């Protein structure tokens, strides 16, 4: 497949570097032979192989958006403690892979000296999977890294400890495109617009393909309309659910709005199949204002959830399992979040989400 353009020595279609060249020798040797693991302390675990080899992992929290110098810093540490190898996790943490147990503590010291936390394992709050936000995306209804920073400062102890009933996976997406894949997280924070796009009628024809703009709307709120003699569209404000998809397709329909962009909080999603089936996060708080740089309303809401969860869940229960056990009415009761008509699903499959039974805690 790789087609290397020899003529100009322009290289294309080569795919990624071969991973085999980047595996530490201890992994190469024990590839597929791991027997079991043990978590030694927050952020540190050991994997034991059939060959009796032991591999120590130290997990380090990262900001994900990092400078080239950060990359050099961690490279130095990898050289010093890990024969130059290291990896990232699927949630943007760093993992140092050690074959010598005695390197663990010195490494941790150096990591911490650089200002980076060790943790995020086992019954902890994981690093928050997130997206670009105001930093780099035009459709964002909020910043990503900023909210994440504010949250992780606040809940730092849950990352470096393992004092939660179970893993808590938090995710952040700055718009309904949900790049952070917040759809199935224990706690998900999503940037929400709340005002219909503005139609820049003059520019629609030039910038947009009208049929696909119309097709982009999940609720058929975009309709063709000739304005000042030019083909354009109109938006039915009574139908619009502020998803921004028409804007994605048509730049002449900007939706960002300083007063009405904000954040929603969803809870109780889960991807793993352990014990219960994977499930989406469900709406807890429909809208909170954008209040940079610290988003106190968001932090407060997340704190409410985390505290209630910590107090209420039994050991080993993910957020979804806890809520399932106590029931959604109780979740709203103990968090104090208001249950509104917005919580009742009125989208395409909404009918499948009603309580078709007499079950109620009274």
């Amino acid at each position, binding site marked *: 497949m790789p087609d290397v353009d020899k003529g100009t020595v322009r290289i294309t279609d080569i795919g990624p*570097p071969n*991973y085999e060249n980047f595996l530490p020798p201890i*992994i190469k040797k024990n590839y597929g032979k791991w027997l079991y693991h043990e978590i030694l302390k927050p952020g540190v675990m050991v994997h034991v192989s059939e060959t009796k080899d032991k591999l120590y992992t130290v997990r380090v929290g990262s900001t994900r958006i990092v400078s080239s110098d950060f990359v050099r810093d961690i490279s130095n540490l990898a050289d010093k403690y890990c024969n130059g190898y290291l990896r990232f996790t699927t949630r943007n943490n760093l993992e140092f892979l050690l074959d010598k147990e005695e390197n663990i503590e010195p490494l941790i010291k150096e990591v911490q000296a650089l200002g980076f936390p060790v943790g995020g394992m086992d019954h902890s709050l994981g690093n928050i999977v997130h997206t670009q936000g105001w930093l780099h995306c035009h459709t964002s209804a909020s910043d990503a890294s900023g909210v994440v920073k504010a949250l992780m*400062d606040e809940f730092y102890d849950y990352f470096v400890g393992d004092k939660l009933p179970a893993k808590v996976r938090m995710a952040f997406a700055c718009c309904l495109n949900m790049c952070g894949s917040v759809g199935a997280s224990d706690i998900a924070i999503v940037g929400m617009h709340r005002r219909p796009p503005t139609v820049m009628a003059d520019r629609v024809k030039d910038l947009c393909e009208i049929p*696909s703009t119309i097709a982009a709307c999940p609720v058929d709120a975009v309709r063709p309309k000739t304005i000042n003699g030019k083909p354009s569209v109109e938006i039915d404000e009574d139908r619009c659910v502020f998803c921004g998809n028409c804007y994605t397709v048509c730049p002449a329909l900007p939706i960002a709005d300083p*007063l009405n962009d904000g954040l929603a909080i969803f809870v109780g999603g889960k991807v793993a199949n*352990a014990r219960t089936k994977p499930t989406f996060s469900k709406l807890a708080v429909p809208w909170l204002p954008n209040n940079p740089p610290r988003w106190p309303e968001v932090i407060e809401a997340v704190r409410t959830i985390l505290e209630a969860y910590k107090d209420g869940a039994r050991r080993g229960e993910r957020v979804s399992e806890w809520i399932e056990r106590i029931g959604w009415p109780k979740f709203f009761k103990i968090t104090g979040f208001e249950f509104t008509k917005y919580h009742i699903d009125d989208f395409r499959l909404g009918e499948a989400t009603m309580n078709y039974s007499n079950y109620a805690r009274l």
Partner: protein
Amino acid sequence: MAGTKHKTPLLDDLKEGKWPSFVKELERAAQKSPRTDDLIGLLEKSYRDHIPHWKHGGMAGVKGYGAGIVGRFSDSPEDFPGTQEYHTARINQIEGFFYTSDVLRKLADICDEHAGGLFNFHGSTGDIQILGFKQKEAEELFQKCAQLGFDLGGSGSALRTPSCCVGPARCEWANYDTLHVTDNLTREFQNEMHRPTFNYKFKIKCAGCPNDCIASGARSDLSIVGVWKDNIRIDQDQVAEYAKKFDIKKYVVDKCPTHCMDYTDDKLTIDDSNCVKCMHCINSMPKALRPGLQKGAQIRIGAKVPMVQGPRLGFILVPFYDINKDKEEDYTFLKDLIQKIWDFWDEYGTSRERIGELIQRVGVGNFLEAIELEPLPEMVEHPRANPFIKFEEYLVADEEEESKEG
């Protein structure tokens, strides 16, 4: 740290606190990169205004590729000239996200030289992202990466860089070689990744077991998940050790979703015919329990985010297949299946319609027929309750069976 030339009282606040600060990272990059300094200024402006300051649209890319670079143009280039163009390159990660310090340093150098000194390690799809270059730098950035062995990933209506969990490299539960298949598919589908011809994006993710540490089931059109077919291996001595630490009945047995475990008289037994491979018992007692030996993979299809028809998780398309044997055959089965899925999507999908939405629109049964898979009860939570069955044939008066569909 030296800070930025812009006044950033709001962002400055985010330099405080225990968690590492992305603002400090931005500032570190800005030390070497004036354009990143302007990026900080632009971001501060967003913090003040509560809206993003990026324009929608504008192209960036490299010759011969239609994907892998996301163009970004500021709406305030006068005040923040460095952000006039501040593009992102999506670079295939190394499978399992393994790196050496050597290669990382070289990437850092490229990023300083040809971009804003700023990375995402990694993007949500799994790519390394290099931020902050201009169109005129794109080609050189690309070729420098290529010389180092890195290629661009996907964007637009193309395949995305497949990704996987750490799998057999560092996990005892991997039922197949997640890194190998991810690498193999990525190489196989270079063209589909770099030259958008699909209706919309397509994502493949590979998890070694149903713990799904790559979250494939929630965010990949095709999710490959390792699983075993035979019995969970039990080490009763180790079970006894765990029994000293916690209540096995309460924390393990009672939480089995199919209640197929039993722990009486200090002995753990599993009715494996009823085990749905949820992983919970194994997760709880890694020293005592291990997946079986007949290992393979399941395939789920159709996960995606809300746009346009609502969010979807993946549903089971193939309950079990011997991916380890398929590996020996260069994943012929898997690639054939993927090709059939794409052919169907190509034939019937509309623009910006993900495969999951298409399947829903045309009906799962029809999709299965097209890709030549049998309908199986494993695919459904339960059979239909409504009686609106679209029978495809009926008898006609001369008592011969007639198929209307031909």
